[in-house]
């Protein structure tokens, strides 16, 4: 299948007053259209940097990033979902969801608005559309945040640990919800996570990163049985994959200390 996102020899340096931090070292990977990819790596290795570069919030120091065949990033093709839901408390659920449409005021505004309404109905939030975010549960808030991202119809979704603020039980069910929504909307997604089992249960491909300066250590293609992340956790190769990634990440740590 065609690639939606390609990182070609991407290097990135952070500038601070007293230091220059080498964050990404020759990062190469590709993400296919309509696939779900995850980035895992030791904390602080530069996973979020990769997302910021993809979103066009940062520019690479060298190398090339191709999005949908273009080497100039069009922010309108990207939807970014953060660790926190960042819902605006003074806006109703509906007003939060249409925030992006309000900002970009696209030509086909009415179309987008009716699409957003459709999403709300489809994912059981329509009855809450006039409520303020504070009356929603953590899982619902995260769903609203996802629909806010989807309402702009991005081609690529960037998910920066979007479940880490939720308790474990909610996390598993929201994980399923989000996965289902992304798959049924036929979106491509790039997930950053600390949670290896979350990465295995959701992804078609896992990109394992080394410690800083991050470089791609391994590309793992997954083919687990099961329709939802929760079901995939029952696959017999789950434990083996977990061990493999775990050892890759922990080896990293021992190498570092040596």
């Amino acid at each position: 299948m065609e690639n939606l996102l390609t990182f070609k020899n991407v290097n990135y340096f952070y500038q601070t007053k007293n230091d220059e931090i080498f964050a990404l070292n020759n990062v190469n990977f590709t993400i296919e259209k309509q696939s779900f990819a995850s980035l895992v790596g030791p904390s602080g290795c530069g996973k979020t940097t990769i997302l910021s570069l993809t979103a066009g919030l940062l520019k690479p120091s060298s190398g090339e990033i191709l999005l949908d065949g273009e080497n100039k990033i069009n922010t309108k093709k990207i939807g970014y979902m953060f660790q926190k839901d960042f819902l605006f408390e003074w806006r109703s659920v509906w007003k939060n969801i249409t925030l992006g449409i309000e900002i970009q005021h696209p030509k086909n505004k009415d179309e987008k608005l009716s699409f957003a309404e459709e999403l709300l109905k489809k994912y059981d939030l329509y009855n809450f559309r006039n409520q303020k975010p504070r009356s929603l549960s953590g899982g619902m808030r995260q769903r609203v945040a996802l629909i806010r991202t989807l309402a702009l119809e991005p081609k690529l979704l960037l998910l920066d640990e979007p479940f880490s603020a939720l308790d474990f039980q909610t996390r598993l069910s929201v994980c399923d919800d989000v996965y289902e929504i992304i798959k049924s909307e036929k979106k491509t997604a790039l997930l950053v996570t600390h949670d290896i089992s979350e990465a295995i249960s959701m992804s078609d491909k896992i990109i394992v990163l080394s410690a800083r300066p991050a470089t791609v250590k391994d590309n793992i293609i997954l083919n687990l049985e099961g329709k939802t992340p929760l079901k995939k956790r029952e696959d017999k190769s789950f434990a083996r994959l977990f061990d493999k990634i775990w050892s890759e990440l922990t080896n990293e740590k021992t190498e570092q200390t040596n």
Partner: protein
Amino acid sequence: MKKQNKQINFSKAHKEYVKKLRRDKFVIIFFRIFVLIAFLGLWELLTYFNILDPFFVSSPSRIIAQLGTLAQSGTLFTHAWITLYETLIGFAIATILGYLIAVLLWWNEKVRKIFEPYVVVLNSLPKIALGPVIILWVGAGTSAIITMCVLICIVITTMSMLSAFLSVEEGKILLLKSMNANKFQILFKLVLPNSMPEFISVLKINVGMSWVGSIMGEYLTSKAGLGYLIVYGGQIFKIDLVMASTFVLCILAFGMYYLVSLLEKRYQRR
């Protein structure tokens, strides 16, 4: 109906609890009024029996009589209106201008850093010290009083609003940026609405500060107003006039505060 049914199902303990809450509230309101009546009554009695000299401390009945004469001659309303007018204008100018300056300082980081020390110095400077300068520059009278009022309120408005603007979560700004928002949109869709609670508390502070400003201005230079009446009353040893004017001042200031708190309630209900 439904609510009533629900209440019946509550335990006896809950009933007792609600009863206690109501009783406590009653006690508080009762003693509030009691303190006021006791204070006024004691004041009246002590002066009536000449234990305290009403020439120096006035008395409630004398204040009421004074208010009556002032009201009859119409001067009470003229003076009250002048001070109220100065306060409201000063309050409005200081709030709007201070807010706009805060927006400007938020907008441009360099400008903010350049002006930071000046704002700090202005904030710690006792504005009354500028009195003579103000009179020389804008002339004696109403404009000097309004200027004083503005000077007292504006720095705190700018400082409070700026710190509210700067306390917006970085992630929310990033979210808007990822949606391709420009700086105007970040300001109007996020920074300003996000700082509404701080804005209301600035309004509350400014209600108090603007009265300080206008009365201080009237002490400096005035031919009319409640501050003028207070100074004049003091100079001719007419404590009744001082007290009566202070009383009117209390009512007006409370009224203004009450309006702002109504605004706050309306905002919170939204």
